């Protein structure tokens, strides 16, 4: 149990630093407008153990979001979208529940549930997160086209990066 918390805290901090120090700098522009953003920080929330208390999820998402917003100069936008993702996470985990239910200390990663489960879990959550993030960023569905393009392109690159990190860092918890 202690190990789980330590791993999660370290992962939380590392993902935050990686997002702020590395992935924030990388934006590719396509046709004059930057559509490609790397958004990998939701992984910190998504990889927490299945039975993590909701309050812990939401509060850690809120803190992560607010700290990201300090670096992105966008007060509340990351926080709002990440809190939403943290909230929706459990619903999606319940939706993807395998036949033999979840154990108390199950960690939603490739090792526990297999690649197929992990891909569908991460892609659904990440897509929702990125879509919500860009919607809040634009704040109006007049910009639906931009939101749509941003979501699609950012989702593809972020998802690839997340998969690669999962193959490189095979954590137990």
């Amino acid at each position, binding site marked *: 149990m202690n190990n789980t918390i330590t791993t999660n805290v370290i992962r939380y901090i590392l993902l935050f630093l990686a997002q702020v120090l590395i992935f924030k700098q990388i934006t590719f522009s396509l046709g004059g407008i930057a559509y490609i953003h790397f958004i990998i920080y939701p992984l910190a929330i998504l990889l927490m153990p299945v039975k993590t208390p909701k309050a812990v999820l939401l509060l850690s998402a809120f803190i992560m*979001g607010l700290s990201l917003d300090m670096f992105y100069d966008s007060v509340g936008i990351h926080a709002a979208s990440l809190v939403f993702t943290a*909230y929706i996470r459990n619903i999606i985990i319940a939706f993807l529940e395998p036949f033999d239910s979840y154990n108390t200390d199950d960690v939603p990663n490739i090792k526990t549930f297999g690649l197929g489960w992990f891909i569908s879990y991460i892609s659904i959550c990440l897509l929702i997160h990125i879509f919500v993030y860009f919607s809040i960023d634009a704040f109006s569905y007049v910009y639906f086209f931009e939101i749509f393009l941003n979501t699609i392109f950012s989702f593809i690159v972020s998802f690839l990066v997340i998969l690669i990190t999962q193959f490189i860092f095979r954590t137990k918890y």
Partner: protein
Amino acid sequence: MYNVIQLFVKYGGHILFVILEIICFSLIINYNKAQKDIFLNSSNVLAAKVAEQESKILHFTTLSLQNDSLMRENSTLIENLIAIEYSSEIIPGADSLYTRYSLIPASICNSTVHLRNNHFTLCKGSREGIKPEMGVISSHKGLVGIVRNVSDNFAHVMSILHSQTRISCAIKSRQGHGSLVWRDMDPLRMTLEAIPKHEKIAIGDTVITSGYSTLFPRGIQVGKIEKFSVKPGNNSYDITVRLFNDLTNIKYAYVIQNRFGDEQTKLEKEVDNE
């Protein structure tokens, strides 16, 4: 009290979620300018679209008014172009503002183009100063016809697409002049006759009015030479001119008023009578 605690235990996650989201959104709206603007004027994006559509429709209703004013503006511009053509002939001491030609803008009520002898009807008549034997042009580039009859409110124009059309024309920056006739049934092409074959011409030359008649001032562009040939035993070129204007779809025209036209014809008639 127990119930309230029970509620929090049961739905704590959801309540926390809602509270956190409310905090986030209040932060977003208070500290981000773009989002604040959209939030405060959320209707603005929508209202702007509605207003845009509205102005488009309203714009449409004033189209004819704007068209009229543009026509008037155009007519003064063309008058100036014609005046420049004659600028070297202004008699010193005469009022320099006194132009020899002035234009009357008019819209076309009725027109034919596919007959052998075509006509136009203008929606302006003698009340606006239109008289028979006035030239009609569609712009500084393109002839329309010659006024034949006028009533109070309408004018009947013989189109240049008419078997009896003979308009004195010249070729820009070349010598000689000939007359423009309509031989084939093609509303885009006319024939320029009687340019002597010793003159040098080339395909692509601009055909302009010569100004020898009282109808059209000098220098109105008519069309471009598309091809030319000399028929055996003939002393002049047979030139096909492609017109600049498409008479099949014109809606507006300008009637040319020649202030000295009467004087010129009267003088020429006197000589004839002698």
